[in-house]
């Protein structure tokens, strides 16, 4: 039954691994803004449609 201690050690090690990953992600700021990224990923496919370049530059100016 000593195998239990091995599995226990492994399971706690895995738990700590995931905890570490979570803490790393938090410190990197991945949970700072939960609203925008979920929107942003939906908008990846939309591009600016081509227009005459000089006209565009004129507008920006």
């Amino acid at each position, binding site marked *: *039954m000593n195998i*239990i*201690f091995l599995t*226990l050690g492994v*399971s*706690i090690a895995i*738990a*700590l691994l*995931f*905890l570490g990953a*979570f*803490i790393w992600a*938090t*410190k990197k*700021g991945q*949970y*700072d*803004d*939960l*609203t*925008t990224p979920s*929107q*942003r990923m*939906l*908008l990846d496919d*939309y*591009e*600016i*449609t*081509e*227009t005459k370049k000089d*006209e*565009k*530059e004129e*507008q*920006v100016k």
Partner: protein
Amino acid sequence: MKNTTSSTGIPRGLPKAAHCLHCGEEVDLSNVVFSNGNYFCCTGCSSVFELLNTLGLGNFYKIKEEQNIEKTGRPIDPEEAEEYGYLDQDNFINQYTSSEYPLKMDFYIEGIHCGACLWLIEKIPDYAPHIESVSLNMSSNVATVNFKDEKKFSSFPEIVKRFGYKAHPIKIDEEAQELKRKENRKSLIRLSIAAVCAGNIMLLSAAIYSGAEGIFAKHFGLLNLLLSLPVVAYCAVPFYKSVISSLRSRRVTVDIPIVFVIVVGFFLSTYNYLNGNDQVYFDSVTTFIFLLLASRYFLKSIQERITRKEPASRLLFSQNRILIWDNQNKQFFLEPIEDLRAGQKVKLKKGERIPLDGKLLSPDAELNLSVLTGENIPQTVLKHDVIYAGSILESEQAIIEVTKTGDSTRIGKLLDEVEKNYRSKISSSTYSDKFAAIFTLLVGVIAIISFVTISTIISPATALSRVMAFVLIACPCAFVFALPLSLGFSLNSAVEKGILIKSTQIFEKLPHVTNIFFDKTGTLTKGVYKILKWNTEKLSEYDQAAIVAIEKESSHPIARAIVSHLGDKDVKLPGVTNFKHIYTKGIEARVGNHIYEFMSDKDIKSSNDINEIITTKIVINKDGETLSELYLGDSLKEDAKFVVNLLRNKGYKLHILSGDNENNVKQTALKLGIAEEDIYWEQTPEEKALIVKGLKHSMMIGDGLNDTSAFSSADVGVSVQGSVEESLKVSDAYILNNNLINIADLLEHGNITKKSIKRNTLFSVAYNITAGTLALLGYINPLAAAVLMPLSSLLLIGSSLYGQNNLNQKRQGAIL
């Protein structure tokens, strides 16, 4: 809505309802902008539409369509937004950038609504030559912009201005921002560690409870002890800190019994484990801490979504520089507003909000005083008259001598007062703090009595273990989990309905409200000044064209209303000469050989229409003879009468509190059936606050800065219009979609939250009596605690959710 066709003369062939292609607002067909086969509500919307298409940003509308976004709000008039050239000057660059990132600037953006806005803003670097990258945070509406060139910071706000958003540069306080961010991350890390440890402890404890013995029990117990160490020593730190500070200020908070449970539970369990005793509660203690941290994190994150960090006065005075007279160079120079001193002379231009108290030096000026009166119709002030900060200049320009600046201006003092009132409101003890005081006292007393009794009857050792079990299991759950959850759920569902709530304390006050004060203009009425009655059929084409031509010379709201009423007909407008204002009476001008006069007449009869409030009568004279008469005014919001009746039937006492004149307020009260002794007219902001203070259990509903001191004097202040950020600084709740019915909803929310709190309290009392008695009689062992404690928490969470469902169902019932 009824008589519009006859009185405004819309062609009958047009569809009855249309929506603006850009902002999605319903278009008033008497005032529609029709361009390239599309309807727009205003030229602002149509020009943004054209601009987006020329820039190849037409996908904005595709995104809106695919995400089912109907309304995006009207674009801000580019004329209204400030010019940003000052951002490129060195003294401003230093204020708004940090030395670490000299090319980075943060902007608070007004007018962000949805994913389509996000796309529009973040695509800017693709075509703007000076901008490296833009990243927008939609929960705070702050865009972080990296620039390519050092002195082109103005390019970003100039671009978004043309899309209809307003950008305010934010002074970067890196330290404060960083601190807040770190605090947020830390609480998330605390929560995650508590989750991992409590979860593993539960698994190991389950093995112990189901009969693990000998070496297993011993090692599992040791692991439990080790795993609970970080939870007690690190995750629970915020509770210790809060207890220390509350002890210092000699206040009892709900955190005291919490810390007591944690400390007793942990040390008792450690002691018992080391002595080979099986009274070990590591699982209960850690689960308790985890649930606590989770419920607080949840409530905090909802609250943070609503409250913004910008100070009200900064948003009010959005311009950052002003033209100050330089005596040496005999010229006006653009200087930072912070440098303004009393005695200086400043020059202001049309549309600017005056950031100082002062005396007018120009012969006369037109000012919009809505900040003090709530009325949008400009008033004329003469030389040497006093001018208050917050007014908006409506005439071309004005030169003013400064008497007071910043916080010492009348409006500055008002806002200061408001802030002070709020601080004292918040520091008053809450329901849960009062409960905590009683709870802690009661548990303490029972524990001591029981200890003495049990040790005389049985033995001191038994007494100690039973009393400890009692303290541990007597849990203030109703207040540590259920209250934040109930409040959090209420907040969330209020937000979904368009009611933003600043402080959850509002829910404790709402059920007591008996007096409701309404501001008039913009709250009960639409606050839109337009022509209500005017028979234009008798007017000849020539007269109509002459009237439009004359009124186009003026920017007064009456003139604008007349021009938009007669519409932009494709007639050639005649030339206007000798245009002049006749002080307080009207205007006069010559067209061709005729002299036209527009005079206001005091002889006003009230309108028969149930919603219309006539405030002004204008008589048009041509060569001394009366040509036509027209009536202008405001109208009640569509649901005003319904909501007023609903609230009256529910037993609330209703009042009107307005800065407008007697006649207009009386007309409004009459139409709504509010008694004459309950209405107040021509009230200054200071007087409004006094009246509200005079009556107990009051709620103030208003729309502007002139109501702010009344908001803070009332138990509950609700604002219904204006910018969210400004309003939430000064009121308890903000109603987004301008529907008065939400006021009734808000009151209902208060009642239901109170009921749910009551139910939770009752349940918690019953639980504590039962479990406490069992503990003192010696029936509670760790297994019973491990089952009972989470079970009671779950029941309370369920009860809070149930209250919420109840509310939603009730709402649907009301809508159907």
